[in-house]
Protein backbone atom coordinates (compact mmCIF):
# COMPACT_ATOMS: atom_id res chain seq x y z
CA UNK A 1 0.00 0.00 0.00
CA UNK A 2 1.23 3.48 -0.81
CA UNK A 3 2.56 5.57 2.08
CA UNK A 4 1.11 8.97 2.97
CA UNK A 5 4.22 10.60 1.55
CA UNK A 6 3.76 8.76 -1.75
CA UNK A 7 0.09 9.71 -1.89
CA UNK A 8 0.88 13.39 -1.39
CA UNK A 9 3.52 13.13 -4.05
CA UNK A 10 1.01 11.52 -6.38
CA UNK A 11 -1.49 14.38 -5.90
CA UNK A 12 1.32 16.86 -6.52
CA UNK A 13 2.11 15.06 -9.76
CA UNK A 14 -1.50 15.34 -10.91
CA UNK A 15 -1.45 19.05 -10.16
CA UNK A 16 1.75 19.37 -12.14
CA UNK A 17 0.30 17.55 -15.11
CA UNK A 18 -2.69 19.89 -15.19
CA UNK A 19 -0.47 22.93 -14.88
CA UNK A 20 2.01 21.81 -17.56
CA UNK A 21 -0.81 20.77 -19.89
CA UNK A 22 -2.66 24.07 -19.48
CA UNK A 23 0.48 26.20 -19.67
CA UNK A 24 1.85 24.52 -22.78
CA UNK A 25 -1.55 24.65 -24.50
CA UNK A 26 -1.78 28.36 -23.70
CA UNK A 27 1.69 29.09 -25.08
CA UNK A 28 1.17 27.00 -28.22
CA UNK A 29 -2.15 28.71 -28.77
CA UNK A 30 -0.40 32.09 -28.61
CA UNK A 31 2.33 30.88 -30.95
CA UNK A 32 0.20 29.09 -33.52
CA UNK A 33 -2.59 31.64 -33.69
CA UNK A 34 -0.07 33.93 -35.35
CA UNK A 35 -0.06 31.53 -38.33
CA UNK A 36 -3.76 30.72 -38.29
CA UNK A 37 -5.50 33.63 -36.60
CA UNK A 38 -8.48 32.77 -34.41
CA UNK A 39 -11.27 35.30 -33.85
CA UNK A 40 -9.75 37.70 -31.30
CA UNK A 41 -12.52 37.12 -28.72
CA UNK A 42 -12.07 33.34 -28.84
CA UNK A 43 -8.29 33.50 -28.69
CA UNK A 44 -8.37 35.90 -25.73
CA UNK A 45 -10.91 33.78 -23.90
CA UNK A 46 -8.97 30.54 -24.40
CA UNK A 47 -5.68 32.08 -23.29
CA UNK A 48 -7.38 33.60 -20.24
CA UNK A 49 -9.06 30.31 -19.30
CA UNK A 50 -5.87 28.28 -19.61
CA UNK A 51 -4.07 30.91 -17.53
CA UNK A 52 -6.77 30.66 -14.86
CA UNK A 53 -6.51 26.88 -14.86
CA UNK A 54 -2.76 27.17 -14.20
CA UNK A 55 -3.33 29.59 -11.31
CA UNK A 56 -6.15 27.53 -9.81
CA UNK A 57 -4.09 24.38 -9.73
CA UNK A 58 -1.35 26.29 -7.95
CA UNK A 59 -3.99 27.37 -5.42
CA UNK A 60 -4.94 23.71 -4.94
CA UNK A 61 -1.29 22.76 -4.41
CA UNK A 62 -0.86 25.47 -1.75
CA UNK A 63 -3.78 24.06 0.21
CA UNK A 64 -2.36 20.58 -0.24
CA UNK A 65 0.98 21.69 1.20
CA UNK A 66 -0.75 23.16 4.27
CA UNK A 67 -2.64 19.92 4.74
CA UNK A 68 0.56 17.98 4.31
CA UNK A 69 2.39 20.04 6.95
CA UNK A 70 -0.45 19.54 9.41
CA UNK A 71 -0.59 15.79 8.84
CA UNK A 72 3.18 15.28 8.87
CA UNK A 73 3.35 16.94 12.30
CA UNK A 74 1.20 14.24 13.82
CA UNK A 75 1.71 11.24 11.55
CA UNK A 76 4.94 9.83 10.18
CA UNK A 77 4.31 9.93 6.41
CA UNK A 78 6.48 6.88 5.76
CA UNK A 79 5.03 4.50 8.38
CA UNK A 80 1.53 5.95 8.75
CA UNK A 81 1.89 5.75 12.54
CA UNK A 82 1.30 8.65 14.97
CA UNK A 83 4.46 10.47 15.97
CA UNK A 84 5.61 9.93 19.52
CA UNK A 85 6.09 12.99 21.73
CA UNK A 86 9.74 12.68 22.69
Amino acid sequence: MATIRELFHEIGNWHNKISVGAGVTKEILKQKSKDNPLPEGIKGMLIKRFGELERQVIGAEKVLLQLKDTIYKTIDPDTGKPRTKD
Partner: protein
Amino acid sequence: MDDEKFVTDTLEGFFRSRGYHIFKTEDGEAALKIIENERLDLVLLDIKLPKVDGIRLLTYLRRDYPRTRVIVMTAYDLEYKHKIDGIGCDAFFLKPLLIEELTRTVEELLSKEQISRESAILPVEAKRTTAEGSGRKARLLIVSPRILLSGLLKDYFSHEEICQGNYEVMESGLGQLDNIKKFKPDIILLDVALVGLLGEFGTTLMKLPQPPKEIILFGDPAIKWEEVEVLIRRGIKFIEMPQDLRDERYPIKETIQRLHNALKEACVKYGLKGGLDG
Protein backbone atom coordinates in the same frame (compact mmCIF):
# COMPACT_ATOMS: atom_id res chain seq x y z
CA MET B 1 14.16 14.12 -16.95
CA ASP B 2 10.93 13.44 -15.14
CA ASP B 3 9.27 10.22 -13.98
CA GLU B 4 5.96 11.32 -15.54
CA LYS B 5 5.77 10.52 -19.23
CA PHE B 6 2.98 13.04 -19.73
CA VAL B 7 5.30 15.79 -18.48
CA THR B 8 8.33 14.75 -20.57
CA ASP B 9 6.18 14.32 -23.69
CA THR B 10 4.46 17.66 -23.24
CA LEU B 11 7.64 19.59 -22.49
CA GLU B 12 9.45 17.85 -25.34
CA GLY B 13 6.81 18.94 -27.88
CA PHE B 14 6.73 22.46 -26.49
CA PHE B 15 10.46 23.14 -26.40
CA ARG B 16 11.01 21.37 -29.72
CA SER B 17 8.49 23.76 -31.30
CA ARG B 18 10.68 26.59 -30.00
CA GLY B 19 13.72 25.30 -31.83
CA TYR B 20 15.48 23.27 -29.16
CA HIS B 21 16.95 19.82 -29.67
CA ILE B 22 15.44 17.68 -26.93
CA PHE B 23 16.34 14.42 -25.24
CA LYS B 24 13.91 13.03 -22.70
CA THR B 25 13.77 10.19 -20.25
CA GLU B 26 11.64 8.96 -17.39
CA ASP B 27 14.35 7.06 -15.52
CA GLY B 28 17.66 7.96 -13.95
CA GLU B 29 19.70 5.20 -15.57
CA ALA B 30 18.73 6.30 -19.07
CA ALA B 31 19.37 9.89 -17.95
CA LEU B 32 22.97 8.96 -17.10
CA LYS B 33 23.49 7.55 -20.60
CA ILE B 34 22.13 10.71 -22.20
CA ILE B 35 24.35 12.89 -20.02
CA GLU B 36 27.40 10.83 -20.97
CA ASN B 37 26.65 10.53 -24.69
CA GLU B 38 25.32 13.97 -25.54
CA ARG B 39 26.77 17.35 -24.81
CA LEU B 40 23.81 18.88 -23.02
CA ASP B 41 23.49 22.63 -22.60
CA LEU B 42 20.71 22.42 -20.07
CA VAL B 43 18.93 19.76 -18.03
CA LEU B 44 15.42 19.96 -16.61
CA LEU B 45 15.77 17.57 -13.71
CA ASP B 46 13.10 15.99 -11.52
CA ILE B 47 14.28 14.67 -8.16
CA LYS B 48 12.10 11.59 -7.97
CA LEU B 49 13.38 9.32 -10.73
CA PRO B 50 13.48 5.52 -10.73
CA LYS B 51 16.81 3.62 -10.68
CA VAL B 52 19.07 6.66 -10.17
CA ASP B 53 17.50 9.58 -8.32
CA GLY B 54 17.76 13.25 -9.21
CA ILE B 55 20.03 14.11 -6.27
CA ARG B 56 22.68 11.66 -7.56
CA LEU B 57 22.28 12.96 -11.10
CA LEU B 58 22.61 16.56 -9.91
CA THR B 59 25.79 15.68 -7.98
CA TYR B 60 27.20 13.94 -11.06
CA LEU B 61 26.29 16.82 -13.38
CA ARG B 62 27.86 19.40 -11.07
CA ARG B 63 31.06 17.41 -10.65
CA ASP B 64 31.67 16.18 -14.20
CA TYR B 65 29.66 18.56 -16.40
CA PRO B 66 29.95 21.99 -14.75
CA ARG B 67 29.06 23.80 -17.98
CA THR B 68 25.69 22.10 -18.23
CA ARG B 69 22.97 24.28 -16.74
CA VAL B 70 20.57 22.46 -14.43
CA ILE B 71 17.04 23.44 -13.51
CA VAL B 72 15.66 21.30 -10.71
CA MET B 73 11.91 20.85 -10.70
CA THR B 74 10.39 18.86 -7.91
CA ALA B 75 7.12 18.08 -6.20
CA TYR B 76 9.00 17.44 -3.01
CA ASP B 77 8.45 20.98 -1.68
CA LEU B 78 11.24 21.92 0.70
CA GLU B 79 12.14 18.46 1.95
CA TYR B 80 15.02 18.13 -0.47
CA LYS B 81 15.75 21.82 -0.89
CA HIS B 82 18.67 21.87 1.57
CA LYS B 83 20.34 18.93 -0.21
CA ILE B 84 19.91 20.65 -3.56
CA ASP B 85 21.22 23.93 -2.17
CA GLY B 86 24.27 22.07 -0.88
CA ILE B 87 25.05 20.65 -4.32
CA GLY B 88 24.00 23.72 -6.29
CA CYS B 89 21.76 24.22 -9.30
CA ASP B 90 21.04 27.09 -11.66
CA ALA B 91 17.34 27.33 -10.87
CA PHE B 92 14.85 25.57 -8.65
CA PHE B 93 11.15 25.13 -9.46
CA LEU B 94 8.51 23.69 -7.22
CA LYS B 95 5.80 21.82 -9.01
CA PRO B 96 3.22 22.63 -10.31
CA LEU B 97 5.33 24.29 -12.99
CA LEU B 98 4.37 27.56 -14.60
CA ILE B 99 5.39 27.22 -18.22
CA GLU B 100 5.93 30.94 -18.82
CA GLU B 101 8.37 31.14 -15.90
CA LEU B 102 10.11 27.94 -16.89
CA THR B 103 10.50 29.10 -20.50
CA ARG B 104 11.88 32.47 -19.38
CA THR B 105 14.41 30.78 -17.10
CA VAL B 106 15.50 28.33 -19.82
CA GLU B 107 16.01 31.19 -22.28
CA GLU B 108 17.86 33.33 -19.73
CA LEU B 109 20.22 30.52 -18.73
CA LEU B 110 20.97 29.60 -22.32
CA SER B 111 21.55 33.17 -23.43
CA LYS B 112 23.72 33.84 -20.37
CA GLU B 113 25.85 30.92 -21.37
CA GLN B 114 26.10 32.41 -24.87
CA ILE B 115 26.05 29.02 -26.39
CA SER B 116 27.51 28.89 -29.83
CA ARG B 117 25.14 28.15 -32.65
CA GLU B 118 26.61 24.75 -33.28
CA SER B 119 26.28 23.52 -29.74
CA ALA B 120 22.80 24.94 -29.36
CA ILE B 121 21.19 23.59 -32.45
CA LEU B 122 23.36 20.71 -33.50
CA PRO B 123 24.50 17.59 -31.69
CA VAL B 124 28.11 16.71 -30.94
CA GLU B 125 28.55 14.84 -34.22
CA ALA B 126 27.69 18.04 -36.05
CA LYS B 127 30.96 19.64 -35.06
CA ARG B 128 33.37 18.70 -37.77
CA THR B 129 36.88 19.97 -37.84
CA THR B 130 37.66 22.94 -39.99
CA ALA B 131 40.41 21.02 -41.73
CA GLU B 132 37.85 18.65 -43.21
CA GLY B 133 36.42 21.31 -45.46
CA SER B 134 39.55 23.08 -46.52
CA GLY B 135 40.39 23.55 -50.15
CA ARG B 136 37.03 22.79 -51.68
CA LYS B 137 34.04 24.87 -52.70
CA ALA B 138 31.58 25.64 -49.95
CA ARG B 139 28.33 23.77 -50.50
CA LEU B 140 25.53 26.28 -50.05
CA LEU B 141 21.89 25.32 -49.63
CA ILE B 142 19.18 27.95 -50.00
CA VAL B 143 15.85 27.13 -48.38
CA SER B 144 13.08 29.61 -49.06
CA PRO B 145 9.40 29.42 -49.97
CA ARG B 146 9.91 32.53 -52.15
CA ILE B 147 10.71 31.02 -55.51
CA LEU B 148 11.85 34.25 -57.14
CA LEU B 149 14.15 35.17 -54.29
CA SER B 150 15.51 31.66 -53.98
CA GLY B 151 16.28 31.62 -57.72
CA LEU B 152 17.89 35.04 -57.56
CA LEU B 153 20.18 34.00 -54.71
CA LYS B 154 21.05 30.74 -56.45
CA ASP B 155 21.98 32.59 -59.65
CA TYR B 156 24.02 35.15 -57.76
CA PHE B 157 26.05 32.74 -55.66
CA SER B 158 26.49 30.19 -58.48
CA HIS B 159 28.35 32.67 -60.67
CA GLU B 160 31.90 33.10 -59.50
CA GLU B 161 32.46 36.17 -61.66
CA ILE B 162 29.33 37.92 -60.30
CA CYS B 163 29.59 37.17 -56.62
CA GLN B 164 33.38 36.92 -56.44
CA GLY B 165 32.91 33.77 -54.45
CA ASN B 166 33.23 30.06 -54.98
CA TYR B 167 30.11 28.13 -54.05
CA GLU B 168 28.35 24.99 -55.11
CA VAL B 169 24.71 25.98 -54.76
CA MET B 170 21.46 24.10 -54.35
CA GLU B 171 18.00 25.51 -53.66
CA SER B 172 15.47 23.34 -51.94
CA GLY B 173 12.18 23.14 -50.11
CA LEU B 174 11.85 21.46 -46.74
CA GLY B 175 10.36 18.38 -48.36
CA GLN B 176 13.46 17.47 -50.34
CA LEU B 177 15.36 15.88 -47.50
CA ASP B 178 16.84 13.11 -49.63
CA ASN B 179 18.39 15.67 -51.97
CA ILE B 180 19.68 17.68 -49.01
CA LYS B 181 21.27 14.52 -47.58
CA LYS B 182 23.02 13.83 -50.89
CA PHE B 183 24.16 17.42 -51.25
CA LYS B 184 25.65 17.57 -47.70
CA PRO B 185 25.49 21.36 -47.36
CA ASP B 186 28.18 23.21 -45.42
CA ILE B 187 26.08 26.32 -45.01
CA ILE B 188 22.34 26.78 -45.15
CA LEU B 189 20.63 30.08 -45.91
CA LEU B 190 17.26 29.70 -44.25
CA ASP B 191 14.42 32.09 -44.99
CA VAL B 192 12.45 33.16 -41.91
CA ALA B 193 9.35 33.22 -44.10
CA LEU B 194 9.31 29.51 -43.18
CA VAL B 195 8.47 30.58 -39.65
CA GLY B 196 6.53 27.90 -37.80
CA LEU B 197 8.63 25.24 -39.52
CA LEU B 198 12.10 26.44 -38.54
CA GLY B 199 12.27 24.46 -35.29
CA GLU B 200 11.07 21.30 -37.00
CA PHE B 201 13.55 21.80 -39.82
CA GLY B 202 16.39 22.35 -37.33
CA THR B 203 15.53 19.04 -35.70
CA THR B 204 15.52 17.32 -39.08
CA LEU B 205 18.92 18.80 -39.88
CA MET B 206 20.30 17.44 -36.63
CA LYS B 207 19.45 13.95 -37.79
CA LEU B 208 21.43 14.26 -41.03
CA PRO B 209 24.47 12.01 -41.13
CA GLN B 210 26.53 15.11 -41.98
CA PRO B 211 24.83 18.17 -40.51
CA PRO B 212 25.65 21.67 -41.81
CA LYS B 213 28.43 23.71 -40.25
CA GLU B 214 26.49 26.95 -40.24
CA ILE B 215 22.91 28.10 -40.61
CA ILE B 216 22.23 31.73 -41.52
CA LEU B 217 18.72 33.08 -41.21
CA PHE B 218 17.53 35.79 -43.51
CA GLY B 219 14.28 37.62 -44.10
CA ASP B 220 12.11 40.55 -43.33
CA PRO B 221 12.62 41.85 -39.78
CA ALA B 222 8.89 42.58 -39.70
CA ILE B 223 8.18 38.85 -39.49
CA LYS B 224 11.11 38.12 -37.22
CA TRP B 225 8.94 36.93 -34.33
CA GLU B 226 9.28 34.64 -31.38
CA GLU B 227 10.58 31.44 -33.01
CA VAL B 228 13.22 33.43 -34.88
CA GLU B 229 14.08 35.54 -31.84
CA VAL B 230 14.86 32.38 -29.88
CA LEU B 231 17.27 31.20 -32.59
CA ILE B 232 18.93 34.62 -32.77
CA ARG B 233 19.37 34.73 -29.00
CA ARG B 234 21.09 31.38 -29.31
CA GLY B 235 23.70 32.83 -31.63
CA ILE B 236 22.31 32.15 -35.11
CA LYS B 237 23.07 34.99 -37.47
CA PHE B 238 20.14 36.92 -38.94
CA ILE B 239 20.47 38.99 -42.11
CA GLU B 240 17.74 41.50 -42.85
CA MET B 241 16.15 41.19 -46.24
CA PRO B 242 12.81 42.61 -47.32
CA GLN B 243 9.75 40.53 -47.99
CA ASP B 244 8.99 42.87 -50.86
CA LEU B 245 12.10 43.06 -52.99
CA ARG B 246 11.17 46.58 -54.12
CA ASP B 247 11.24 47.76 -50.51
CA GLU B 248 13.51 50.79 -50.50
CA ARG B 249 14.53 50.40 -46.87
CA TYR B 250 16.68 47.41 -47.75
CA PRO B 251 18.09 47.72 -51.27
CA ILE B 252 18.36 44.21 -52.67
CA LYS B 253 21.95 44.63 -53.76
CA GLU B 254 23.01 45.63 -50.28
CA THR B 255 21.16 42.82 -48.57
CA ILE B 256 22.66 40.21 -50.91
CA GLN B 257 26.05 41.70 -50.10
CA ARG B 258 25.28 41.29 -46.40
CA LEU B 259 24.44 37.66 -47.01
CA HIS B 260 27.66 37.22 -48.89
CA ASN B 261 29.66 38.80 -46.07
CA ALA B 262 28.07 36.38 -43.61
CA LEU B 263 28.92 33.49 -45.93
CA LYS B 264 32.51 34.64 -46.26
CA GLU B 265 32.86 34.77 -42.48
CA ALA B 266 31.52 31.24 -42.21
CA CYS B 267 33.91 30.04 -44.92
CA VAL B 268 36.88 31.54 -43.10
CA LYS B 269 35.71 30.00 -39.84
CA TYR B 270 35.42 26.54 -41.34
CA GLY B 271 38.31 26.67 -43.76
CA LEU B 272 36.10 26.56 -46.86
CA LYS B 273 36.90 28.16 -50.19
CA GLY B 274 33.67 30.17 -50.52
CA GLY B 275 34.82 33.77 -50.22
CA LEU B 276 37.53 34.11 -52.86
CA ASP B 277 38.72 37.45 -51.68
CA GLY B 278 38.85 36.27 -48.08
